[in-house]
């Protein structure tokens, strides 16, 4: 048992993670559901009463309970790996990435799961923290609903089903992601 635990406590290579993600998608389909996380954000709006002022959120959110439970499983999975599966915050990122980010003032790139100098409670009060966390989160929530899905719904489910709309959405993900990473992040990181 402890050998098994040691074994799964190592970082998992991409060729283990990718097929497992496909298996997760298949499991959801097999149980008659879909694999898409961003729908939960819409459900949360509905739970908070947004249906009263906006028909987009006017639906019986209880029919989406299965997806909220799925999201709760994600939190639990994160917690289990944090507590029991040899939590190792370091990501084995490339040397190029490390030296580049050091140049932007990130002290120990890859050694924590997020850059702690940006993602912390105190920094929320700074312009930089506000942009990264509040504006960033807003864009994710707005964009994902506008595009009708996120990475799980479009990049995994939609592409697996060879849907042109999902391919276009993924192209969009990269247009936004590349613009941000190449042209905007260099300024935001050094604020």
């Amino acid at each position: 048992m402890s050998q098994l635990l040691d074994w799964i406590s190592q970082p998992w290579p991409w060729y283990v993670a990718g097929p497992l993600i496909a298996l997760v998608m298949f499991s959801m389909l097999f149980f008659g559901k879909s694999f898409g996380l961003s729908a939960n954000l819409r459900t949360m709006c509905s739970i908070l009463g947004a249906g009263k002022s906006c028909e987009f959120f006017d639906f019986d959110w209880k029919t989406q309970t299965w997806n909220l439970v799925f999201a709760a499983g994600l939190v639990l999975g994160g917690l289990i790996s944090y507590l029991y599966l040899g939590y190792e915050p370091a990501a084995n990122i490339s040397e190029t990435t490390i030296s580049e980010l050091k140049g932007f003032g990130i002290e120990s790139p890859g050694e924590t799961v997020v850059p702690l100098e940006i993602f912390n409670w105190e920094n929320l009060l700074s312009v930089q923290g506000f942009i990264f966390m509040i504006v960033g989160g807003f864009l994710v929530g707005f964009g994902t609903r506008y595009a009708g899905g996120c990475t799980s719904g479009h990049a995994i489910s939609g592409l697996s089903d060879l849907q042109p709309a999902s391919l276009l959405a993924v192209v969009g993900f990269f247009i936004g992601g590349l613009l941000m990473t190449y042209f905007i992040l260099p300024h935001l990181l050094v604020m």
Partner: protein
Amino acid sequence: MKFLRYLLIGTIFGITLAKAEVISWFRIYEMFKFQSFHMYGVIGSAVVVGIIVIQIIKRNKLKSIDGEKIIIAPKQFSWARYLIGGSIFGLGWAMTGACPGPMFILLGNGVGVILVVIVSAVLGTYVYGKVRHKLPH
């Protein structure tokens, strides 16, 4: 109890993305800079296996546990919606380093402040719902 299965699948998904470093902000940055194959390997192999799975389901007309036909809801094609909406999502993804799945995993993984990002994403979804009639789709 009938929801327990989704909790279990979610837990497996959460552990997978945590152990494969997909929840790392740095991995997303590295991906958008094309400095490593890792993220492309994760998403690419998921899609390749996914395509095979979906083809098997379709060719054998496999049914779900309730005896219903298994389908992935077809998205009606349009340019504006996916290109503009997708790009807005991409901007946020590169900033926060987290899409809607990893946000929840990070919360369990000890990054409490990600809660702010989640709340803000809910707000973004709400604002989309309010202004969607004015947007090109």
